[in-house]
């Protein structure tokens, strides 16, 4: 089954989600390649595209994986806590 589109934003940052950035980048490249664009616009979208490339690559290399545990807290409300030792260990996990 092909995964569906998920354009929602990363809840913890104002930056667009990886997928939104990627979609926009593809639009920009397509538009520049079609060539029906003024010089002014082409420079503006080029600059935007370069920023998106940088953002996307940063997103891919950022190693800040977190592992949390979800428990039923007060009144049965879901609450997250840091994962127990042995699950969050970066060194093990990234080998």
């Amino acid at each position, binding site marked *: 089954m092909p*995964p569906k589109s998920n354009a929602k934003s990363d809840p913890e940052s104002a930056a667009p989600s990886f*997928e939104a950035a*990627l979609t926009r980048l593809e639009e920009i*490249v397509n538009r520049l390649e079609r060539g029906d664009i003024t010089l002014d616009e082409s420079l503006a979208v080029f600059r935007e595209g370069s920023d998106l490339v940088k953002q996307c*690559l940063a997103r891919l290399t950022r190693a800040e994986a977190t592992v949390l545990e*979800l428990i039923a807290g007060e009144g049965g*409300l879901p609450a997250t806590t840091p994962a*127990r030792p042995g699950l969050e260990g970066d060194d093990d996990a990234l080998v």
Partner: protein
Amino acid sequence: MSPMEAFSFERRITTPSEINRRVKQLIEGEIDELWVRGEISNFTRAASGHLYFSLKDSTAQIRGVMWKGNAQRLRFQPADGVEVEIRGKLSVYEPRGEYQLNAAEMSPAGLGALYMALEALKRKLAAEGLFDQGRKRQFPAFPIVVGLVTSPGGAAVRDLIRVARRRWPSVRLVLAPTRVQGEGSAVEIAAAIELMNRWGQADVLIIGRGGGSMEDLWAFNEEIVVRAIAGSRIPTVSAVGHEVDVTLSDLAADVRAATPSNAAELVVPDAREWSERIERLNRQLNRAVVDGLTIRRRRIESITATHGFKRPRDFLTQEAQRVDDLARRLALGTERRLIDARRRASDLDRRRQPALRNLLTRSRARLDRLSAQLGSLDSTAVLSRGYALVLRADGSSVVTTAGDLRPEDRLMLQFALDRAAVRVESTIPGGPGDI
């Protein structure tokens, strides 16, 4: 009537064949299919694939056979000493006058009832539509938060975490810990799935455990778990580590993965693949913008070459060079930006940013001017003021002096919107006419 005949009339003599046939009819006609429990002994698997054995209890035994077709569907390995439950029918092997149990189905004792209950539950839930293909949902291509419903202590959770982080280093994993086998585990699994749904921040749930025997995996066949999976608002991936048996959880989940590692691979995208794609897009981006500038440069060149506008010519060649220069510096600039981005993804090079921005601003102002000039110098603008361009009839070149022409030469006059084919009558030497 001979004495012999009288004698035979009184004794009703039959034959072994007939007896066996009658016994066979009697047994097969009177005794319906039944379930028998007993211990296997004298087990042999014939070259033909049929199984022969005896089934015994503490005081008696009967012979049993299972034909190849049924034997191939067995989910366990029968052997001497194993206590089994067999569904079958009694039959008689006429050549030997032996009756035997013809086994259609066999399972380890105790599991038989469980399997029957499982089949019944499966039919019931299937009838409710819980396993329908039409219910299957897709999950996001780039999940930000992946929910895990499994045991915090097993190898499964560590495999999931390791594979997920290797593929997408910034993936966020949230584990709803639960026991996955033993009394009461089904209730815990269902509660963990419901907790995930109440929390609502996971994009997809992976529900499962590592491999084990069918009994170990049994919680994933329990109605409460199957209903929790089917009722989850968050898309589900089942990851019950067993290749042979498909649990009801597998049937109810949106996607079935063979193992927990496999589930992580299905759910979490591979950053390496995507960084290649991004770099490809970056190269396309650079090429497209440089190509755009090249096309504009050629337009300028073709105007200066064909139309011979003398005064602005210098200006245009100069601007063409600037476009070239800009293209080169732009390409160089982005190359550096990309290297920079890759090396220190989160740390911006603060000195280069303003420099690049200045370069772009200056270039833009210059190109804006150029665009304006191009607009005013565009040949159609000139032609619409009443001028016409004189071309060779085949359009190959512009004619700039009558000295190049001879009588009868064919020419093309290019007006702003259309053209006319003409023929030279004569040429007149001298200075510009009085128009």
